[in-house]
């Protein structure tokens, strides 16, 4: 029964990635290699982040929200953006359209994140006899994270790969990218600074991810129009 529950939570956590890959044209153009490369870049980035966090952050004894530490953490969080930049621009990709490239990178990125952050707690926790809602919520969080990663990758590809974009949209693009990149810090603030509970935080994440996805989609199509 508990293996069943683990199975359910795993579907919720990793299913959308697979569905995204098979439902969109990504599967038709065989972009798996790109996703795997992006995942590897994520691994490297996570390692660098880990080293930075361990070096610069001191372990706080109390549970409070320390603005200075959080700021530092947000800055370290921007290493992600650097990693994403590397994955989008520096990696050799087979000749696939920008359209598919950012999706493949975002997907690989989100999948690696899910595997690293969620698989272990899921395996250890969800198989236990004790029932909690945590693992289902965590699965939902993985969904939100997928959407956010793809949005960030889309905005990144707009920033770094597309040359002829409307001038008026550039500040908006940068602002959105900034918001999406600081999302982990925002949720951390909500959870610890304002003391929100996990379900509420997950709800917020889902909501904002959908909003950001919609905005980046609009931006992307707006940028595509002149070139098309």
């Amino acid at each position: 029964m508990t293996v069943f529950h683990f199975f359910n939570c795993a579907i919720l956590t990793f299913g959308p990635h697979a569905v995204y890959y098979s439902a969109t044209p990504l599967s038709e153009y065989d972009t798996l290699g790109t996703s795997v490369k992006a995942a590897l870049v994520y691994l490297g980035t996570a390692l660098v982040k880990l080293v930075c966090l361990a070096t610069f952050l001191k372990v706080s004894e109390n549970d409070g929200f320390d603005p200075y530490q959080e700021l530092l953490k947000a800055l370290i969080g921007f290493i992600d953006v650097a990693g994403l930049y590397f994955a989008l621009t520096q990696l050799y990709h087979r000749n696939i359209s920008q359209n598919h490239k950012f999706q493949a990178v975002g997907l690989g990125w989100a999948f690696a994140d899910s595997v690293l952050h969620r698989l272990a707690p899921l395996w250890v926790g969800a198989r236990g006899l004790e029932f909690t809602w945590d693992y289902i919520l965590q699965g939902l969080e993985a969904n939100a994270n997928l959407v956010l990663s793809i949005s960030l990758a889309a905005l990144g590809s707009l920033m770094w790969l597309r040359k002829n974009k409307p001038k008026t949209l550039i500040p908006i693009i940068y602002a959105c990218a900034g918001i999406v990149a600081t999302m982990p810090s925002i949720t951390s603030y909500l959870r610890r600074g304002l003391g929100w509970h996990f379900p509420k935080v997950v709800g917020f994440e889902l909501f904002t991810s959908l909003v950001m996805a919609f905005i980046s989609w609009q931006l992307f199509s707006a940028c595509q129009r002149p070139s098309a």
Partner: protein
Amino acid sequence: MAASKKSGGPRDMLESMYSVIALVFILVACVELCDAAAVVDVYRLIQYDMSGSPFGSRLASLNHHAASLHFPPGADLSRTVLIIPLRELNITFVREYINQKKPLGGLLFLLPEVFSFENGGNKQIHEKEKMKNVLAELEQLLIHANIPYPVYFAFENDEIETVLADIKKNDAIGQPATATTGGYKLVIPTPEPKKVASPTITNIQGWLAGLKADGEANQLPTIAIVASYDTFGVAPALSVGSDSNGSGIVALLEIARLFSLLYSNPKTRGRYNLLFGLTSGGPYNYNGTQKWLRSFDQRLRESIDYAICLNSIGSWDNELWIHVSKPPENAYIKQIFEGFSNVAEELDLKVGLKHKKINISNPRVAWEHEQFSRLRVTAATLSELSVAPDILEGTGGLFDSRQFVNETAIIRGVKLVAESLARHIYGHQGKNVQIFADDSSLAVNPAYVRSWLDLLSQTPRVAPFLSKNDPFVMALKKELVDHTDEVNVQHENLEGMFTFYDSTSARLNIYQVASVTFDLLLLLVLGSYLIVLFSFLVITTRGLDDLISLFRRPPSRKVKTA
């Protein structure tokens, strides 16, 4: 991320550490972590065989759903653990279930905290008295029944109260917890109980030699003071027996201490040897006493003038009983009784004499002195009980805890015994001299009595579960070494009709579980979510026609996309 809610402070570290930890965990995937909602210490009902027939709880491991007494009538309880708080216990209900051998997954009795030797207080005396009777009845019922499922005892605490309240709520709605409706699951992962291989009993004897006049050829007479120290109770890990026979041990140790003071000075050393015996195997017809007496050589046995056995002298008001096997007209008995009653009069308490003939053909030995009487040694038992208890009764049950024992009663008992012994030894019979007067250096020490009583009230002492070198046995030995000239420890095998099984205590994990139907439903929801997501993505990226063609001609998909 889920763990971050609990981990608090170093959460940031943990979050980034997960990446590394994940890899490690994938490698050690078999590791099972205990993450139960509550973990409670539980104590198992004793499991034993008497002359080959099984008694007590025959199982130890437990993995069932929990239910309260409010379960719907007619429910199948064969895979359910009933949690019964002692306050709500309906003894006829339990009796019916056990006697009719109705199927049950298990039983968990919740004892009020006042019975715990850690948290006992003096509150609710009235309630305690009532519960004491209920417990005594329950105990006799459980000890003499053969129960094919696990039975455990636990003390009430906040965690288990919350769980129980939840279960009651579920039961009241009419939704008992089974595999399909969720609820709480009680898990005790213990291996099958094993027989205790050749249980040993340990007798400890201390010898305080009297003063022998020069040139005296005859051996000095000996007076023996004996108390049996082990217990037997419904839950061996809780069987502390503060009164039976903790009070007897305390009294014996204090008497030994007092006489060691007297005997340390040659001027006050009496012309009697004193023999102190702490015997084991008391609940099993004083098996240890029998072995101990058999090990004496003939001369020593014949030199024993008389023996005083101390049994349950911790909770009496004003009357003690001297139990003897010889008729009261017997000169020795008369002498002992008069000695005691004279002192008793001065101490303003009453001593009664009870005569019970022994039947050699009956294996039952109700009093410790009967073992002496069988070997023709004059002996008497001093006890607050007026009638002999049945076998395995009154030997340290659950209710026999510190709260029900009165220190002053023990102190008075000590005074009575010590004073009458001293008068006998120093030949002051009938004279009104107080040797152990309250303010003298030979006064009974209440602090000593209290500290030993507290220790005994925290130490379960069921003989088969006490090893040869148990710290408790060592402590008793050391105490006698301090107060006597010579101490001998005798190890014997517990013979007779008893076989015991181990695993007397365990840890109970209480899990809140979801039902299978919930997971099925969840799977359904997730499946439809993924299908909707798939359709949505196909429509937005490739168009509706593509989606339809996917279903219409699946094999042609490749041709079309190529």
